[in-house]
């Protein structure tokens, strides 16, 4: 069935390689937006340089240990990866390609390599450099097509700037573009949201992510609109929020964007393959500050202290040759699990129970749901055996549909998914 990568007749003992995804975090921004609680912030050139130097070393530390894997997607996220000089990104991808074997996903697809970009931080040269480096997908953080709303959010760009960037991207041959949009903004009305949707669909990106604003602790938005905030009455009502959410789907589907995950819409064939990894339980390795990984049934993330990250890598690098896996047999055996620089945190070994639970509560985020055969294949036991009663009950309550060997949430089930996904956690046994 999966006869991939067998491109040489020389080697009789070609083993099937495991599919691996790569995520790289670039924690720099021109300015932090008022609602943002991500790991990001402004920095000077020196800071950026020392970060990337450390990043390249982190990538390099895997040399010689990646033989069992083939990379099918790469995602460079942030922060604003596009705010740093393109040289860094190009060198990054070079390093990644040097250390890891890249391949296609299924059949003859080339690897999907995405970079997140902020309108206003890219120009013709940068975009051309990205193409040259092999990037074939762009994700623009637009959020809104109304300048007033953009200012409210503290974004650094205008809608016009975005449109220019978008056209440029198309000119330079980017055939797979995503646009991020944000609804439920304070003072937003249905009409302004519908306008945004209309304008964006008219531009015709391949993919649209539509999120609701969340007021996160520790952000200026929390101070303004949180429980103690003076402007908290400006937040839209629960009814409007629901209406917006409903209309989003109606409008996007009308224009040919199929919802394939709770917040993600795409033209058929243009689903974001990288993000699917998270919900399908595929393996991924993270590089950079706070980046998360899931390999060998183990979850962990890198430290989210910039200081720690850089120090650990520079310090250990002095004995770089010692820890480089080229010659140490035990590290080779550990494969990707060896933490060369000691930057990993929150390492959790997942049990079978954990994996089953994740299969369900992550997999059900996707519109197509989860597959019974896949479940049986992975876990050796039928889904009904574990979840039969729960699925029956949820189906009676119109929250879940089981049909044709697949189990998925109904529209209503998705709307209240936060409430029901905890049903898939198993009691400790």
């Amino acid at each position, binding site marked *: 069935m999966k006869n991939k990568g067998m491109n040489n007749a020389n080697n009789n003992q070609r083993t099937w390689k495991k599919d691996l995804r790569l995520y790289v975090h670039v924690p720099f921004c021109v300015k932090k937006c008022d609602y943002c609680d991500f790991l990001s912030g402004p920095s000077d050139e020196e800071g950026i340089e020392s970060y990337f130097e450390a990043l390249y070393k982190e990538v390099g530390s895997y040399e010689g240990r990646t033989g069992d894997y083939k990379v099918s997607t790469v995602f460079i996220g942030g922060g604003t990866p596009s705010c740093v000089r393109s040289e860094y990104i190009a060198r990054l991808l070079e390093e990644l390609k040097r250390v890891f074997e890249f391949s296609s996903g299924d059949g003859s697809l080339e690897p999907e390599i995405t970079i997140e970009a902020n309108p206003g931080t890219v120009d013709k040269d940068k975009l051309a450099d990205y193409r040259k480096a092999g990037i074939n997908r762009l994700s623009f953080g637009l959020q809104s097509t109304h300048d007033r709303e953009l200012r409210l959010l503290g974004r650094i760009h205008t809608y016009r700037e975005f449109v220019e960037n978008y056209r440029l991207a198309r000119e330079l041959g980017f055939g797979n573009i995503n646009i991020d949009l944000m609804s439920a903004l304070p003072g937003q009305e249905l009409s302004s949201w519908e306008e945004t949707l209309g304008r964006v669909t008219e531009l015709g990106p391949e993919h649209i992510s539509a999120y609701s604003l969340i007021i996160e602790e520790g952000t200026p938005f929390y101070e303004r609109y949180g429980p103690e905030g003076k402007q908290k009455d400006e937040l839209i009502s629960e009814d409007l929020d629901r209406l917006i959410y409903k209309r989003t789907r109606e409008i996007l589907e009308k224009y040919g964007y199929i919802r394939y995950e709770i917040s993600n819409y795409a033209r058929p064939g243009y689903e974001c393959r990288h993000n699917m990894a*998270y919900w399908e339980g595929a393996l991924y390795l*993270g590089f950079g500050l706070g980046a998360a990984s899931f390999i060998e049934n183990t979850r962990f993330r890198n430290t989210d202290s910039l200081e720690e990250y850089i120090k650990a890598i520079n310090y250990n690098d002095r004995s770089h040759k010692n820890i480089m896996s080229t010659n140490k047999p035990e590290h080779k055996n550990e494969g990707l699990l060896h933490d060369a620089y000691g930057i990993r945190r929150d390492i959790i070994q997942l049990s079978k129970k954990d994996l089953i639970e994740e299969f369900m509560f992550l997999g059900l985020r996707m519109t197509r749901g989860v597959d019974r055969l896949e479940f049986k294949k992975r876990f050796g036991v039928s889904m009904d055996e574990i979840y039969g009663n729960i699925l029956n009950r949820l189906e009676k309550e119109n929250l879940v549909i089981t049909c044709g060997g697949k189990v998925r949430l109904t529209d209503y089930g998705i709307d209240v998914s936060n409430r029901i996904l905890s049903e898939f956690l198993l009691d400790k046994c």
Partner: protein
Amino acid sequence: MGVDQSKIRNFCIIAHIDHGKSTLADRIIEMTGLLTSREMQDQVLDNMDIERERGITIKAQTVRTVYRSRSGEEYIFNLIDTPGHVDFNYEVSRSLAACEGALLIVDAAQGIEAQTLANVYMAIDHNLEIIPVINKIDLPSADPQRVIAEIEEVIGIEAHDAPQISAKLGVNIEEVLEQIIAKIPHPKGDPDAPLQALIFDSLYDSYKGVITFCRIMEGTVRKGTQIKLMSTGVVSEVVEIGTFGPGRFIPCDELSAGMVGYIIAGLKNVKDTRVGDTITDAKRPCAHPLPGYKKVLPMVYCGMYPADGAKYPDLRDALEKLQLNDAALQFEPETSAALGFGFRCGFLGLLHLEVVQERLEREFNLDLVTTAPSVIYRIHKTDGQVIELTNPTNMPDPSEIEYMEEPFVSAEIMVTTEYVGPIMTLCQERRGVYLGMEYMEERRAILRYELPLNEIIYDFFDALKSRSRGYASLDYEFKGYVMSNLVKLDILINREEVDALSFIVHADGAYERGRKMCEKLKEEIPRHLFEIPIQAAIGSKIIARETVKALRKDVLAKCYGGDITRKKKLLEKQKEGKKRMRQIGNVEIPQKAFMSVLKLDDQ
């Protein structure tokens, strides 16, 4: 081994909470040489954690020490510790009956409080010699002269030579000890008369069985004596007797008239050894039991249910174990449509209830759902029957009821004059009947009210404190049953009556109470995927209503690599949260909702 009665002093210490009773007891023990200060843990007599936390003594414990007076003579002091809370009045009275004298401690800054008075009156009633002691003279606000004047005026006993001490700092304690010798009479009684001993406390030990604490009034008891407990008729042979060192028992050969000690007689059940009962010699019984014995009756009831139905046997075992040392605790099985199998428990008062609840949760590791405390109502049915109602669910149909009675108490509230107004308002709100008021000095007054017990069993004391900025104090005792216009208030959640939330209230307050309960429940019950009506009803008439809106959107928009662990934790928390819920029909109600409906005081 004859004991010289003239060298014995039996006394107790009575005081308002926090006026320093335990500290003084510690000092007395220290100074009489049986323990060094280094060996002593603070507050030696309070050996239960819960007591230490609340700073009050719950279980009475007695200590025997030896004091060498200034004149060089040796005296035996039997210090009988008494519970300090109004819930345990009966136990206090039996401890007093074991003594000839009492040290009355008054805080030099606070002066006399309501509870001080209550206990003093009781001591006077028992003909005890009262030695006032003025404590906490180390405080900057101490005013001993004022307090002395207060004592003489309000209580009417001599106080000009009351020892002025600081128990905390150990100042002037010796004066107290000398006055004990000088002023408190020594016990009398004929060691050869028929045995007559007062049980003033008991303890259950898993090896030794029941250990009774006794004051021998007449006669002598020895190992091997066949004793008889006069109220129950139970007969048993004495296995061991002795006296009390601090924290341990010291066996001896005989206890004779005037002495205080313990008797172990192969008794398994603490119910057999009732506080206030008389022990006599089965072969040569005394003519009459000692006066003052009465059966202790609970005043407050509540339902206790295990959160996890499977733990019902554990709850039962735990209650049985607690009862071994707490004869006042009563319980019997009951069921609730809402909560399953549990127990209806009776307590002497709210403090008693809280202590038992805490012990069940802490010592026995039980997760409990407790329903609202209620009192015993008397229902006079049309067919002439009179029933005592402890569980509102069992109230008969109104058409069968001729009239109802509820228990009333007479209460004394001491408060500083500026808060007299708000406190009177509070009492009126709680259907109090004003009896009178006295000014103690310009600053303080005593308010006397008769109040329905069900109005004060929950948050009355807290409301009193908050409306008086903490300066009010309360003492009350059961007065009797009074006819009242009472109705049963039912709560329906999602149109289903939840029996555990039923309530008996006075008709006048029913609407208000119903409204508040619905509001409170609306806050406590989380949103579900459907709308939940919450209604209060009297009979078939709905008198209040709130609605919990249906939840129609609750989605996590973003869930990428780094979010997964956090999302999992949230889901786990949600799942845990569900465990603390009770399922009533389709609605999940948090356990604490059942009790929270009582915290309804606004101020």
